[in-house]
């Protein structure tokens, strides 16, 4: 198992606020990693830096054997790092199928698409619709879908980009408690066969412990714990600062905008 993604001495400051404080982490190929932490702990900042939305103040990010620090979101996506968003980023006036047509269309025209990719487009769209159970919404306008479905479509769009590394920013936020597991099952089974490395931000500790191999716990821009879920979730610091046993509930706070 090789290292697919590596952050070295990553720092990000906004004026006086430190959103990332000396982050060092290596992510193994094919692993599923959970990012936890209370509001403003630096999870989304980390994802935003990896995907090029934010430029780190210092430090570097490597993907496979390339330095991707400071590349644009487009370049990074073209290399195979795709993401979903806390607030779904869809084409609101287009139907579900058109959204996927655009997504798959772009991916299959990229250099990574391969010579036959364009012939496979329609097939790929159908597969995505099936895997994410979007069949009933095929011709509905994305802007008018219920929140849970928008979330699914947003993730399906990220998957349509044929990722090597997939970053999901709070995939289950805005989804009702009993739907969360169904959604995660769907996402994980959609990715199972493809050998994709997944990083996702999550506030629900039950979900994190069930679906991940590894947890990174963020607090004030630092990673305060890193390891197997069972171990990390037992650590005192994590229990205090992330799960919030001695203070306010981080899970509840997470309903608002992160970071």
């Amino acid at each position, binding site marked *: 198992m090789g290292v697919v993604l590596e952050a070295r001495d990553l720092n990000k400051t906004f004026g006086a606020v430190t959103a990332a404080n000396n982050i060092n982490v290596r992510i193994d190929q094919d692993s599923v990693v959970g990012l936890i932490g209370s509001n403003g702990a630096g999870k*989304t900042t980390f994802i*935003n830096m990896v995907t090029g*939305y934010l430029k780190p103040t210092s430090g570097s990010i490597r993907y496979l054997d390339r330095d991707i620090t400071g590349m644009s979101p487009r370049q990074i996506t073209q290399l195979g790092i795709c993401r979903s968003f*806390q*607030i779904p*980023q869809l084409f609101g006036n287009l139907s579900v199928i058109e959204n996927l047509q655009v997504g798959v269309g772009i991916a299959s025209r990229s250099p990574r698409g391969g010579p036959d990719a364009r012939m496979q487009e329609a097939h790929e769209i159908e597969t995505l619709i099936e895997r994410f159970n979007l069949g009933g919404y095929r011709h509905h306008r994305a802007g008018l879908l219920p929140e849970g479905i928008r979330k699914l479509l947003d993730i399906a769009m990220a998957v349509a980009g044929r990722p090597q590394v997939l970053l999901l920013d709070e995939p289950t936020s805005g989804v009702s408690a009993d739907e969360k597991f169904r959604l995660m099952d769907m996402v994980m089974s959609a990715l199972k066969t493809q050998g994709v490395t997944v990083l996702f931000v999550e506030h629900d500790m039950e979900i994190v412990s069930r679906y991940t191999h590894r947890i990174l716990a963020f607090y004030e821009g630092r990673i305060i714990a890193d390891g197997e879920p069972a171990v990390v979730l037992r650590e005192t610091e994590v229990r205090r600062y992330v799960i919030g046993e001695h203070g306010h509930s981080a899970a509840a706070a997470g309903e608002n905008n992160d970071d």
Partner: protein
Amino acid sequence: MNQFLAIVIDGIIYSSWLFIIAVGLTLIYGVMKILNVAHGSLYALGAYAATAFGGYWLAQGYPPIGSYGMLVLAAVFVGLVAGPLIERGLLRLMYGKDEVVLVLVTYAVFLILEDMTKLAFGVDPLSIPEPYGLLGSFEIGELMYPTYSLVLVLVSVFVAVALALFLGRTRHGKVLQAVIHDREIASAVGINVSRVYLVTFTAGVMLAALGGALTAPTISVQPGIAAEVIVLAFAVVVIGGLGSLGGAALGAVIVGMVRAWAVHKWPEVELFSVYAVMALVLIMRPKGLFAAPEARKI
């Protein structure tokens, strides 16, 4: 040296005029986020109203000095009538729409006002030269200037200082700045945004009309002046940064000086130069010289 002086003085006069015609536009944009294409028509209405009010005054044989008061009265009248009418009757139905859609809405208002002006005042050129002629001229070195230009400069400085004091020193001005800064927070803390809009728009219209009324004595007032003025006003506010009052002043000075320079040194590029500067500033600073930073989206 003489020519340099002439350029500077012409530039100051032209800048003052530009500031008066543009400041209302930037005020309305700053508060309401509406780029008002009809601003030029309101300028034209002010000019027409000035010929009517001033003409009436002089025809009655009242002392000509009072015609200056009539110019101002014309502007106030246009502001108080057209401002609330357009804001309450039309724009209020459009709030929340896209900025570009609002541009189209005011473009429609521009078209409507063009013809309403023609219907009300006819298509023949009108004039009210008395306030201009009355003051005579003065000399700087060997150069002669109409004293009326001095009035324009003084009015422009007065408007600028009054607005700056109003915004910086008074309670109402601070309320306005709160709305400019963040509409939602402003209404959350109990500011009556709807009323602020009404007052702002009326004030903006009044300033446009004042520009027209003060210009009326120096030009022949006829159809087409609205379309010419609005693009100049756009150039001024876009250069300075939409919604910034300081920006409008800076934009006016830049455009005024560039044009004065062109008129003296290279008359062929006079009109071209204004828009070339506008394009150049937009290219270097896409949101104008005084622009607010943008917030994070995700």
